[in-house]
């Protein structure tokens, strides 16, 4: 099975985010980046499928030069080779078009990706790629196992419900974090990764001309509002008021 895993590099979770001077993106100066966690799970699923079925795992990333680090990390963790498509910040459709082009070029059986990115959080890229490729897809995947005519995927629904979906290959599966255990990076992995292929392409090499379908005009951090409200009155009244607020305003009951 030939599997392409889409990997996005996102700001590290602990990073302090600032808006850039233009006011429409995150300032990258001084930021540390890490692999988008759901994508790390997607890679783990790909490695598990390769262990069961044989085949090849190709890590694919669309992004600026720094993105190569995420691909090296994927190679260290077990991907066979990597493709880096150099590009600036693209919208979900732009990324999906690149992913689809590579999947076609590689004639891959499966495109795996994280459910959504931890920074932009569109949650659309894998679905759009499936549309462009004209292949079936499923999302919220927790378990992926080879089935008779393709894959069997367990999806995580609300409230502990799980759904089993069988889909033929080729297909696109968007992976939910947490379905299996991530593995740790190893010294041997890092050293072996140095000898693996990491191919860098430009968007133009794929014969694509990408027009933005979505333009971010402005980006702002959420306003910090600290509203502490003291409920006054008899204990019974306070308890009743608290329950009302928890139910109607905070929606936690």
């Amino acid at each position: 099975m030939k599997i392409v895993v889409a990997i996005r590099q996102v700001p590290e979770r602990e990073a302090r985010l600032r808006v850039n001077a233009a006011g429409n993106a995150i300032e990258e100066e001084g930021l540390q980046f890490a692999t988008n966690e759901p994508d790390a799970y997607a890679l783990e699923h790909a490695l598990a499928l390769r262990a069961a079925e044989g085949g090849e795992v190709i890590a694919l990333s669309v992004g600026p030069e720094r993105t190569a680090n995420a691909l090296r990390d994927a190679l260290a963790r077990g991907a066979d080779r990597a493709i880096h498509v150099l590009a600036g910040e693209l919208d979900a459709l732009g990324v999906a078009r690149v992913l689809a082009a590579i999947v076609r070029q590689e004639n891959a059986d499966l495109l795996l990706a994280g459910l959504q990115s931890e920074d932009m959080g569109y949650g659309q890229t894998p679905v759009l790629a499936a549309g462009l490729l004209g292949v079936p897809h499923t999302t919220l995947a927790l378990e992926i196992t080879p089935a008779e005519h393709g894959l069997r995927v367990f999806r995580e629904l609300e409230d502990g419900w799980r759904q089993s979906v069988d889909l033929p290959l080729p297909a696109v599966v968007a992976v939910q974090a947490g379905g299996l255990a991530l593995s740790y990076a190893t010294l041997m992995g890092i050293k072996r990764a140095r000898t693996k292929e990491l191919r860098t392409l430009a968007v133009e090499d794929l014969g694509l001309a990408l027009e933005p379908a979505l333009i971010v005009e402005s980006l702002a951090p959420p306003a910090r509002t600290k509203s502490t409200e003291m409920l006054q009155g008899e204990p019974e009244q306070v308890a009743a008021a608290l329950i009302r607020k928890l139910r109607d305003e905070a929606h936690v009951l």
Partner: protein
Amino acid sequence: MMLLARMLAGPGNLHAVERFVLLALGILSVALFLHQATAIARRILAARRDANFTLAPLAPRCARLFFDVLLQRKVIRERPWVGLAHAFVFWAFCAFALVTLNHLALALHAEFLDPRGAGRVLFFLAALFAVACLVAIAGLTLRRFVLRPRWLGAQPSIGSAGVAFLIAALMVTYLAAFYVAEGSAAAHAIWWLHTLALLAFLPLIPRTKHLHLLLAPLSVFLAHPRFASIPPLAGEEDFGLVTGKDLTRMAALQAYTCVECGRCMEHCPATNTGKDLNPKELVLGVRGYLNHLGPHSEEPLVGQVHPLHAIFECTTCGACQHQCPVAVEHLPLIVGLRRGVVNTGEWQHKQGTRLFLNLERTGNPLGRPHSERERFIERAGLPFFDGSQELCLWLGCMGSYDPRGHQIVTALAAVLRAHGITFGVLRKEQCTGDAARRLGNDLLFQQLAEANLATLAQAGVRRMVSICPHCVQTIAQDWREFGPSPTIEHHTELLARLGTAGLGATTEEKIVYHDPCYLARYRGVMDEPRAVIARSGHLLEPARTRKDSFCCGAGGGLFFLGEESGERIGMNRARELAATGATQVAAACPFCANMLGDALKTMDGIAPQLVDVAELAARQIKP
């Protein structure tokens, strides 16, 4: 002193046939000895060279040879009666060196010691040692075959019995020669018996653990000068001890030197709490591997030399290595085997993987967000280090994220302020990599060490203090591989120097001190915490103390690996500490504070309260 009046009797003339028989038996004995000994020497020399080995500095090596071999320091210190008995057997062997050569020379009339002249003093001296040796052998035989402590293994060794018998025979025949006439038939027979015992003894040496007669001095002399030093990986293809090819000459030498005395087992916290790790079996496992598979084997070491799960039961407390009388270095071996399975990704362990991922993603083993550390710094009012202060207070992960660690840091900060010492904490710290290092994750350890070294260099830190002996050891020792780091000391060292000015009166508290492994055994810091404790109460000592301390169970990354099998190590230690009748248990390590604090809480009756030495010092400050 009947012996003094007597003279050692020679055998008289040997018949030509006798000389021929002697020659033939001599050749056979030496050939058998060489056959065995060279096979072992070849296996040791065929192993990989030790990457970081240098003979210099020679002085400490010679000192160790003098104390640990000649004076039998470790042998006696640990088991005084048995050790002394062993020492007398050893000293008798030394005393007999010339006497034995002379004994064989008699056959050719080439003797060089005159039993009437100068030789008489030596013969008499040897006789005294022979008597002492006989008494010692009798005692040791009684212990080994009748008392049979479990450290010596379930099966009494036949080889040992044979060797004990031959040593006794040598001594008896030597002494008997004082009571017969020179050249008499009896003297002749006694000479032959002594000779036959000698010739039988020689080939037994390399076949039994008595190989230590030859290898122990070498092993003691060559052992790494620094305690529990973890060798750097050598080259691109070194991932630790993966297969036989990765075993080094020192590891091989030590495996063949092991005398199977079981002192390591007797002190191992894992072995003593019903776990499967057994440091003696581990070393003998390496010997077995070399004997059966050899130093060029591609068979994985883990599994062959010791089970995988047992290797991860080691707290790296270092008691085994500290006690070993023949200088076997268990820690580089255990960490090396862990490296072999972690650097290659073989080790799959739920909590272990969680720990590594936490360190990869958040830089701390607990996986907490940095903001928690910042909140603590703000709450405790700790200033940030800006280069103007005397000291950088290294918080460490426990000091940053653990409630118990917070209390210790707060106490230390109060003492520093009271003494007018300026200090600051770093804005950003990552784990020192202690747990990653001891669990064999070299990639993670290197990343953490390098990131921290860069932070410290940027902040211009020159002097540091830490509440955690693990941080101190890792920063002072393990980081050296990646460049110079600022000097660091443990807070007890600093507190001891601060003196008693401005302190309140001592209390009536009875305080028992628990030596943390990484402070006592690794760093040799034992008097300083005691000096601080003595200022605030009566210091008590538990049965296992100072460098013989017993682990709390947290070291070697085990704090993060979940529930122990068997009895909890911390519980075992807490009982011992409570048995001293102390009202307080003083610790000097946030990991010990957690493990022992938890154990004390679960004890029946009124258990002593756990405090850190810094907290005792803080209570002494006059308001």
